[in-house]
């Protein structure tokens, strides 16, 4: 934008208008604006703030609130009435006068404000938005001091629970439709709508659409008044009472920037931070609401040592715990060796400390952070295609996804596994004409919302689901349909592979071949926040920091020199992977284990993990809260949760997402510090006292100076064809599931998707199941799982179940994963019904009154406040029901 100079000499030629721009005047200032820009944005760039409520730069213009009225003259003719500047595009020669220079515009804005305030309750003192409320601010700035309204204000019963988390105060609503537009345009979950007309116009939910949006929290953040609140934060604190600290979300690998609001040492709420490169202005509900695990009552505050007499963990001092741990680890190292399992939720710095600890103090390459099903093929793939990449080194970014002509997702369910990637794909499909293909089993909500999008101008069919059998993805990837093959060959096309690819033999090899064949760029999107950083930090059995292969003696010697270690400290043989480490621990080959944020429930065979943890001679656990590991640990060392430490997550792009300590002075120490001190006890110096020191060391080391390891070459296998009464198991995890990082959040758990088994109509017919009649899934190994059924359009002979939702903990219950053959039959048990049993859904009890909506919202017919407090049940302190120990312990301990 250029502001034409007001002064200057008169004889000068008028400056030409740049290509694709128009010249207009706003408040007497001449300005060039790109064609199609909205007047309100042009004014904003000049520093002229026009008040607004409905306008949001990431949503389509609506012109709903009429607050941004300005006086406009086009081609010398004034428009008959003031026009809404948020829907008006600039045109050449336009003259705009805002409230600053036009009495008409000012009066119009005051009139609109007065009308908006007629029915707005004067409850600012007790409203959550008070202090950060655009309506409050703009009423003070642009409104009248007095109201001429003398009648009774319209009132509604409040609050209405739109979901167990989102509460609606209809009387505060100014009908700007930001929430409905967000739901429709950004998230694709049209869960709230405008109902009724006239003075009774209000926001409500549809009758038949169940409300399950993973992005509902964003509507609270963009609500310009206090109409939408969350059960978790409602009435908890005041905005001016909070300290806001920027941070990074610790949940998935999207790497959302966020704002943590806290006071008195306690996090009160989290908001989406603004980062146009990554999450724009959005985040998912998990990132927004799941943070109370860190303040759970059962968190370890002091080190624990197993008492030799009682066999129970007892509190101890750091000195004692470190001494016991160091002695035990030294003994174990010298007898059989120690394996290290850091887990996938660490910062890059903490992961680096684990890797260095394994090599320097334990002198082993038996380290693997992949606390999930994994494969040697994946290991090769990570070394060849993932490690050391990043946006500045040409890796795929969010912007690339948005600009890509074609995106193919394989073994990756964006909405469930990386919600911000999903939002970006949806945006790309909606605005940019990106074709999004999914190689999967069924037309899941995430697939639907990226392939059939409601665009600004009408429905857009932006992609397809390429159906295949579970396990057949690798084969399907080498025989893609002509249309997809052609799409992937266009420049900028992206092939996305998820971490679930490890379950499908040959998939990573096929993906690399497909990328080579078509020229498409390859992206790997894991689920957990720490996975990507740990790959670079060197916590894999074949890779040292920066992607240095352990087998390369030159690289090894160089690293030993930089670490100040004796020659030959780092073993030259690749170590065991996680499964190998557990097998060796179970058989007694390994004498000790050092475990970080790993939960046995997440591993492909939790029963074997339990046996290994029990069998091993010495077990040290660095944990936040009790898990299946600490149950058997000889020493438990408490570590800091994300808000109490600093560090860096690498998101799936490889982009460093640095964050500082949010809550200081709690005395909690990060893993790297614990490991450093532990190593000192073992007479080894790691120099990883602080995350900053580690970051400096990582910087100094730089990337792998040698050659990249060879890519995997595993041939794809066609999956077995199950006979009658059997089916192929397809599975992935829901975003909101039994994960332990979602503990203590009953309201969030209430919005999780209910666990159901999905099968095709033909399969259901063969089994004699009529949905929602439950089906029982059994395995040869004695596993059994009963779930309500749902018929969807998917290949015959396949059953899909969620990976870790409610009852459906398939690692534990079935011991099998994606692509395995299971027995399936109709169950005689009665269906549980559409409403999820909250205890099943989340391992947490939703307080009465929040598990279902109080008011059938289509018929919000008691529009005027009638008697009867439509109160929500409210957060009832710790609403958690005691579940059978296992549910809490899923998905990483959070260390």
């Amino acid at each position, binding site marked *: 934008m250029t502001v034409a100079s007001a002064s200057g000499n008169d004889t000068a030629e008028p400056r030409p208008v740049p290509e694709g721009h128009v010249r207009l005047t706003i408040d007497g200032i001449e300005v060039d604006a790109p064609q199609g820009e909205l007047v309100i944005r042009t004014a904003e760039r000049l520093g002229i703030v026009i008040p607004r409520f409905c306008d949001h730069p990431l949503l389509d213009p609506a012109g709903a609130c009429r607050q941004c009225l300005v006086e406009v003259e086009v081609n010398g003719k004034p428009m008959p009435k003031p026009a809404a500047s948020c829907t008006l595009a600039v045109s050449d020669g336009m003259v705009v006068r805002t409230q600053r220079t036009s009495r008409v515009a000012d009066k119009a804005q005051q009139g609109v404000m007065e009308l908006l305030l007629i029915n707005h309750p004067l*409850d600012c*003192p*007790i409203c959550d938005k008070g202090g950060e409320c655009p309506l409050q601010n703009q009423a003070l700035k642009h409104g009248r001091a007095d109201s001429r309204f003398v009648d009774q204000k319209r*009132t509604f019963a409040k609050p209405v629970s739109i979901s167990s988390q989102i509460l609606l105060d209809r009387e505060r609503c100014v009908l700007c439709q930001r929430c409905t537009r967000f739901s429709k345009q950004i998230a694709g979950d049209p869960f709230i709508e405008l109902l009724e007309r006239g003075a009774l116009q209000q926001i409500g939910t549809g009758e038949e659409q169940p409300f399950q949006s993973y992005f509902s929290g964003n509507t609270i953040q963009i609500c310009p008044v206090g109409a939408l609140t969350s059960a978790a934060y*409602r*009435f*908890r*604190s*005041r905005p*001016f*009472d909070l300290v806001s600290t920027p941070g990074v979300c610790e949940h998935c690998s999207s790497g959302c920037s966020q704002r943590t609001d806290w006071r008195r040492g306690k996090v009160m709420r989290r908001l989406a931070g603004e980062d146009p490169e990554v999450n724009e202005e959005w985040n998912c509900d998990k990132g927004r609401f799941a943070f109370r695990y860190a303040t759970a009552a059962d968190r370890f505050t002091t080190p624990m040592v197993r008492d030799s007499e009682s066999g129970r963990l007892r509190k101890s001092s750091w000195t004692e715990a470190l001494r016991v741990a160091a002695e035990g680890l030294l003994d174990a190292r010298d007898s059989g060796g120690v394996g290290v399992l850091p887990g996938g939720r660490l910062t890059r710095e903490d992961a680096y400390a684990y890797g260095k600890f394994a090599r320097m103090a334990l002198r082993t390459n038996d380290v693997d952070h992949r606390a999930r099903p994994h494969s040697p093929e994946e290991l090769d793939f990570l070394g060849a295609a993932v490690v050391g990449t990043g946006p500045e080194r040409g890796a795929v970014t969010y912007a690339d996804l948005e600009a890509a002509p074609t995106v193919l997702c394989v073994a990756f369910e964006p909405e469930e596994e990386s919600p911000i990637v999903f939002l970006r794909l949806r945006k790309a499909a909606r605005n940019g004409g990106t074709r999004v293909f999914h190689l999967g089993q069924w037309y899941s909500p995430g697939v639907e919302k990226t392939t059939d999008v409601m665009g600004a101008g009408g429905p857009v069919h932006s992609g397809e689901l390429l159906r295949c059998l579970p396990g057949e993805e690798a084969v399907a990837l080498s025989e893609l349909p002509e249309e997809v093959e052609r799409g992937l060959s266009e420049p900028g096309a992206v092939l996305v592979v998820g971490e679930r690819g490890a379950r499908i033999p040959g998939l990573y090899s096929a993906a690399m071949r497909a990328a080579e064949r078509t020229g498409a760029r390859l992206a790997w999107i894991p689920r957990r926040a720490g996975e990507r950083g740990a790959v670079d930090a060197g916590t894999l059995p074949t890779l040292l920091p920066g992607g240095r292969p352990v087998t390369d003696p030159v690289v090894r010697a160089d690293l030993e020199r930089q670490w100040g270690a004796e020659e030959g400290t780092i073993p030259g043989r690749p170590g065991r992977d996680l499964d190998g480490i557990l097998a060796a621990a179970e058989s007694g080959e390994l004498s000790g284990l050092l475990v970080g944020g790993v939960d046995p429930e997440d591993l492909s065979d939790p029963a074997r993990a339990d046996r290994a943890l029990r069998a091993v001679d010495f077990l040290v656990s660095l944990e936040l809260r009790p898990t299946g590991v600490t149950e058997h640990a000889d020493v438990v060392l408490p570590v800091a949760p994300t808000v109490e430490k600093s560090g860096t997550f690498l998101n799936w792009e490889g982009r460093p997402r640095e964050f500082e300590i949010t809550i200081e002075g709690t005395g909690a120490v990060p893993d790297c510090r614990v490991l450093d001190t532990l190593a000192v006890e073992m007479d080894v110096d790691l120099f990883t006292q602080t995350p900053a020191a580690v970051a400096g060391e990582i910087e100094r080391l730089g990337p792998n100076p040698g050659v990249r390891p060879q890519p995997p070459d595993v041939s794809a296998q066609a999956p077995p064809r199950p006979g009658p009464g059997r089916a192929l198991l397809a599975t992935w995890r829901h975003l909101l599931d039994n994960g332990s990082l979602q503990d203590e959040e009953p309201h969030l758990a209430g919005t999780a998707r209910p666990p159901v088994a999905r099968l095709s109509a033909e399969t259901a017919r063969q089994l004699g199941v009529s949905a929602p009649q439950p089906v029982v899934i059994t395995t040869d190994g004695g596993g059994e799982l009963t779930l309500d059924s749902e018929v969807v359009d998917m290949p015959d002979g396949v059953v899909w179940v969620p990976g870790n939702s409610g009852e459906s903990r398939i690692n534990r219950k079935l011991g099998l994963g994606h692509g395995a053959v299971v027995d399936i039959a109709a169950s005689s048990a009665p269906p549980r019904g559409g409403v999820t049993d909250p205890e099943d859904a989340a391992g947490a009890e939703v307080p009465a009154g929040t598990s279902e909506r109080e008011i059938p919202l289509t018929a919000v017919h008691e529009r005027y*406040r009638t*008697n*009867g*407090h439509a*109160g*929500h*049940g*409210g*957060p*009832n302190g710790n609403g958690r029901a005691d579940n059978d120990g296992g549910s809490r312990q899923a998905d990483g301990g959070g260390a």
Partner: protein
Amino acid sequence: MGMTDPLKGFGVTLSKMFKTVLTEEYPEVKKIPAPRFHGKHQLNRHPDGLEKCVGCELCAWACPADAIFVEGGTNTEEERYSPGERYGFDYQINYLRCIGCGLCIEACPTRALTMTNEYETADDDRRNLIYTKEDLLAPLLPGMEQPPHGMRLGEDEQDYYVNGPELARRQGVPENTTVETGDEEAVR
């Protein structure tokens, strides 16, 4: 120094003996301050005994001396301390810090917090000068019931807020007094 000066001195003493005594017999005889004197705070109750405080923390925010600490809690149907959703779970006023400015009572949206004429807030132990909710809550007047209990005066909190004075009359609070004024004001 003149000869009569000592006599003058005695004269002053003598003349004072026939004037009104300014000495206050405190603490034997307590002085009654002006009606709007800013004394110790009081957390008021509705006529049925439910607390008026909704735990909004505005008093804490208005306080220039940072003397007030409030933490809200959530009412449940089984355990209700105030009408509506929230109540003051924890309420503390530190009288070592309080400067008696009265901004907190101006800020209170429900008139839960008022000031009494009680001025004896001195002690020889710091801890005793941090008044907690029990110390601050208004005494239970006739017709009031110790919370937690249900809403006795109406079906929802609006009844309490909109029809408060009328409900108070019905509950037996005399005309021209309010529930806020507590016992020492009420007897005046």
